[in-house]
């Protein structure tokens, strides 16, 4: 009897450790990618861009189930298609705002309707809207790390060029940089982040992680490099803090991470003002 209890206790302990460890490793990987990418989203005023791409992820989920593809692959494809369309539309100027909004929300709605048609499997839609980080598997974790490292490598590789074309397109052009190509790099990076973040944060919370830690980092930064670094660290802190909140107070993990990020933002604005 005691042996059984011990085994059960041990198994449960290992399980907790494992899923918490996996969740922790997942948010750390995500922070590595959302930190730098979020900075570019803020500097280039692309917030709507993140939203639209993330919303399209739900359509990607529906297509993945419909055609029996892996979720990451389906989401990546649809997010990429959406990001490219948004990128093409936004280059045409502000008159496209209406079209962008329509595209973004119809992708989300279409995805939700699509999922309801899928027979046979019971799909937990909430998991894809708000994330289900505690259900992340070993192989999910590998995918998340691979995606995050690709994004970090892309941004590190193009850093000088990305920064120049963000600052001024004409200067970039005059220096032999093609701003459209740099925008494409960011577009691909965003689609990758959405694909790996869908299981962690869900379609509705991904852009919060792109924006909130970055806005917090801005207050304490005098160089772009420092802002990226701070943004990564703040995202990690929000991720770990949110997981802790979720575990101790039994709150949903994705929203808890965003709440932690928002709390850090609030603290920074108070502290930032006092510091001045």
């Amino acid at each position, binding site marked *: 009897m005691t042996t059984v209890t011990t085994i059960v206790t041990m198994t449960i302990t290992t399980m907790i450790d494992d899923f918490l460890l996996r969740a922790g490793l997942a948010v750390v990987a995500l922070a590595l990618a959302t930190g730098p990418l979020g900075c570019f989203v*803020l*500097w*280039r*005023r692309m917030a709507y861009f993140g939203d639209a791409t993330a919303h399209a992820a739900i359509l990607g989920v529906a297509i993945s189930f419909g055609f029996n593809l892996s979720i990451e692959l389906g989401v990546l494809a649809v997010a990429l298609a959406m990001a490219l369309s948004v990128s093409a539309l936004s280059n045409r100027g502000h008159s496209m705002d209406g079209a962008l909004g329509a595209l973004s929300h119809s992708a989300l709605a279409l995805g939700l309707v699509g999922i309801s048609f899928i027979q046979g499997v019971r799909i937990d839609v909430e998991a894809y809207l708000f994330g289900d980080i505690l259900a992340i598997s070993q192989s999910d974790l590998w995918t998340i790390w691979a995606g995050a490292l690709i994004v970090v490598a892309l941004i590190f590789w193009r850093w*000088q*060029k990305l*920064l*120049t074309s*963000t*600052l*001024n*397109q*004409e*200067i*970039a*052009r*005059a*220096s032999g*940089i093609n701003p459209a190509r740099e925008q494409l790099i960011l577009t691909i990076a965003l689609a990758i982040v959405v694909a790996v973040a869908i299981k962690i944060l869900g379609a509705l919370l991904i852009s919060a992680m792109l924006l909130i830690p970055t806005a917090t980092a*801005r207050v304490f*930064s*005098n*160089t*772009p490099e*420092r*802002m990226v670094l701070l943004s990564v660290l703040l995202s990690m802190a929000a991720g770990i803090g949110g997981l802790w909140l979720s575990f101790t107070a039994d709150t949903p993990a994705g929203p808890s991470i965003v709440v932690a990020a928002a709390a850090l933002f609030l603290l920074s604005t108070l502290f930032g003002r006092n510091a001045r």
Partner: protein
Amino acid sequence: MRLIAVNDISVRHGDFSALENVTFAIEKGEIVTVVGPNGSGKSTLIRTILGILTPNTGKIETKPDLTIGYVPQKLAQETGLPLTVRGFLSLPNRVSNQKAKAALLETGAVGLEQRQISQLSGGQMQRVLLARAILNEPDILILDEPTQGLDQHGAADFYALIERVRDQYGCAVLLVSHDLHVVMSASDRVICLNGHICCQGTPTVVRDAPEYQALFGQGTHGTLALYQHEHDHSHDDCDHDHHHHD
């Protein structure tokens, strides 16, 4: 040696024709000023030369491996991108502290290294933008409305600075301005633009051209004031606006 040859280009934005049959060339070391009222196609011309826009007809030929130092009118400052002057000078190519300092010294902006780009005054900004542009020793400097936001003294000083940089580096200068009153007298050629080239020539020729009088006559009472750079005074005078007490 010919750096840039603009051959009979026309650029349309939808139905609107921004530039029609524009032809001119810029030779090595030459200072060319393009003046025209707002909406005359000056920005379109620059963006086409830089390759951002493609002409609908005609073409632009450039010397192989032409290096351009571009000085924009301003940077997008409200983006939340934190950037020091020193960091800006390292875009897109990282430069040594020594080179950065030399360029700032050249344009009279030394000491601003650690200042945020967003906190520079109009005059400081122009000098910093120019410093970055000369870092890679360009064949040609292209400046878009560099004196906008500067007062008359500031503009005169900036023109003197451009002339000095040209003399030192031997680079050509293409300067675009809507300031019809004042044009650098050091310009080898002034091109008067209003969708097409109205007239061109030396500053004095343009000043006396009937096309210029017709186009700008109302606002400027038909006079083109040439900024005269006094060559006989001490160059220390050029430093008088460098002392910022802040």
